């Protein structure tokens, strides 16, 4: 078991992440202090949650580009509700954003499943539509910190066992995903659908419904993150988390989730998100311009994809070479 772990992608990523931390520590030792690392983890929490949902989608051979817009829409709805009716309890808001996010995600899923539209087109469309809806309901106005109730803003920061609720949300999501992926028929169906859709159909799996489930799940997590995001930064406007969907996809790709589907792991997605989160937090500390951050993330993606392509080439051999002769 141990030797297999050491050869796995997660082990390599862990090594890269530790090396990165060591490099940063040379110039800024305070960065690797436990307190700061906990901050980095907390900062990376939204990315971790979304990357997990995205992983499920990508594993089924789809992609969800609407996550950030979904997040922003659910965040705006939560903020406006809180501004209008400060008495609504947090648990109700949480429930609302998760259900709303899931509903928005299921629109993607339905379009992909029932109308057979390519996922990239569907989610590009819904991404724009969601942003438009935010503008319509908010009339382009911001919801500012002073309009939000204290409880609304305090929730993601509340400490439990020394870690903020936001971090706990990421940890619990990762735990739930581990269970989902390894121990449920749905998790198995994600991988079968992406790994070999025809074989999955013959094994009795409804591949369209599986993709629908992945989109709905990704949407629910985007909804949850929407509230966490808006309450943490205490502001909601049309363009929050703009472009964040690319970070989410990048975290997955860096984490070894194959864009071709069928390959991915919870550990990989989490490590990919942590890698990006660490770079984002460390660059200002070591006095590197934030513009370099994009170049570094981009390079990490290319290296990860090149790595994946190599790994997959070894696997993708013809099983029955002689079958192709058959007249």
């Amino acid at each position: 078991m141990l030797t297999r772990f050491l050869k796995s992608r997660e082990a390599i990523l862990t090594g890269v992440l530790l090396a990165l931390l060591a490099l940063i520590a040379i110039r800024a030792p305070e960065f690797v202090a436990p307190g700061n690392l906990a901050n980095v983890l907390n900062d990376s929490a939204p990315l971790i949650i979304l990357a997990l949902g995205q992983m499920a989608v990508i594993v089924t051979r789809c992609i969800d580009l609407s996550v950030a817009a979904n997040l922003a829409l659910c965040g705006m709805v939560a903020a406006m509700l809180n501004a209008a009716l400060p008495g609504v309890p947090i648990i109700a808001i949480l429930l609302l954003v998760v259900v709303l996010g899931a509903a928005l995600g299921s629109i993607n899923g339905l379009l992909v499943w029932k109308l057979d539209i390519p996922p990239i087109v569907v989610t590009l469309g819904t991404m724009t539509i969601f942003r438009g809806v935010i503008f319509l309901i908010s009339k382009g106005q911001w919801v500012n910190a002073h309009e939000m109730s204290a409880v609304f803003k305090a929730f993601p920061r509340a400490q439990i066992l020394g870690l903020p609720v936001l971090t706990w949300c990421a940890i619990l999501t990762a735990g739930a995903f581990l269970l989902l992926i390894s121990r449920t028929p749905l998790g198995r169906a994600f991988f079968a659908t992406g790994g070999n859709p025809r074989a999955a159909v013959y094994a009795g799996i409804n591949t369209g419904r599986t993709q629908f489930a992945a989109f709905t799940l990704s949407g629910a997590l985007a909804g949850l993150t929407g509230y966490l995001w808006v309450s943490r930064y205490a502001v909601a406007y049309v363009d929050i988390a703009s472009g964040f969907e690319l970070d989410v996809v990048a975290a997955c790709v860096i984490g070894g989730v194959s864009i071709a589907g069928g390959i991915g792991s919870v550990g990989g997605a989490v490590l990919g998100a942590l890698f990006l989160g660490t770079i984002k937090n460390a660059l200002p500390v070591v006095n590197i311009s934030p513009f370099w951050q994009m170049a570094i993330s981009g390079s990490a993606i290319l290296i990860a994809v090149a790595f994946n392509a190599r790994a997959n080439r070894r696997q993708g051999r013809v099983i029955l070479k002689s079958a192709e002769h058959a007249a």
Partner: protein
Amino acid sequence: MTAQQAPLADAAMPQPLLALEDVTKTFPGVVALDGVRLELHAGEVTALVGENGAGKSTLVKVLTGIYQPDGGRILLDGRPVAFRTAHHAAAAGITAIHQETVLFDDLTVAENIFIGHAPRTRFGLIDIGAMQARARELLDGIGARIDPAARLRDLGIASKHLVAIARALSIDARVVIMDEPTAALSHKEIAELYELVEQLKAQGKAILFISHKFDEVFRISDRFTVFRDGQFIAEGRTADVTEDDLVRLMVGRAVDQIFPKRPAAIGDPILTVAGYSHPTEFEDIGFSLRRGEILGFYGLVGAGRSEVMQALFGITRPAKGAVRIDGKVRVIRSPAEAIAQGIVYVPEDRGSQGAIIGLPIFQNVTLPSLARTSRHGFLRLAREFALTREYTGRLDLRAAALDQDVGTLSGGNQQKVVIAKWLATRPKVIILDEPTKGIDIGSKAAVHAFMSELAGQGLSVIMVSSEIPEVLGMSDRVIVMREGRIVAELEGEELTPETLVRHAAGISEAAG
């Protein structure tokens, strides 16, 4: 059968335009062409006949430069040539109209015809005007009224086929290969194709005509060549032989393979199908399958056998018809429902439809059985491993660990994983589509022994197969399909190679 002994009796025959001598092509575990010969003469149509698997398609690929022969010579005008690529073969004037048309749906008709060799302007750009004009000439030449500027997607199957023919003629060909050219054409279009063949003959082209349909072979060919199991069997003038002679040459073999078929105790009907129809694929299919029986489905490629099986398995929906399982009417709307009813389907292309590379062995095996290995919505890994161990053990799977990636196994062991997957669902009926296609003799024997064992245990097997010895050796009963309909149900004494071919090809009894 004087034809067989006297291939070159005609001393006056001129030198063949294209000749193959002792050509051999092997694939891992299979000899596709075993020292075959073939002669094509200018201004003549040579029909190549043989069963599925006789090596006809491989031969076409060797002639068009897609495959390189392992041995033997190809002579063009008496000079040895080698076609290293499809381009070489085209440059030498050899063109083929393929069985399944390989065209581009989103390009225009003219672009499809000239892709790869479009006329150019002075500046090296594609000369669209010239291309369309020449496309129109070619299409008019074969009597096809198709607009060269139309998008291929908007054409019907038959028109697409005519475009493929125009494409084949767009290079200045001396040898034209037609591989099942009439498969998608209507009667009227077939008549036009015959005219085209006559024109090509008059122009002095050598034509290789491959067809399963005997009436076409006799209607159009001047000479014939018979292949069987990758070997040259006979050649001669078509006028010198009868349909019967050809059938005998095609199948005439002692059933030399030993089939491990044991007599099984055949019980009550378990699956009964009546009036099963599909709008385009099959019509009025009715049969019953009994417990412990191996029911063979024979027919030519495209007879609709796999389509019937896919409908039974819930992949496609038939328009009408009833299915009874154990006497009760069942409606099967999805593969999951079929599996739940005890029907499993092992598809033909086990490479792309079987194992899921990237998933471990045990997850592959339990995939259709997840309902049984989970409790309260959660999978029980212990049960999954137990199930996997039980069925892979029976099949003698060689693997280091059951959680190893299935992609790391050899092809034979991957097949065992796929079979274990289906057996683990504990089916009542197992449908095997071409169970031994493309595998070597040794593995074939293992699959056959295994089928026999399954039937012995009371499982009912439907075997879709195009290999006559297999159908004869393994089946208790055989249903023959042609053009989407059941044309015969044969048992016992009636089961001979000749009757199978006769029914599958639609040759009337009177001809014999």
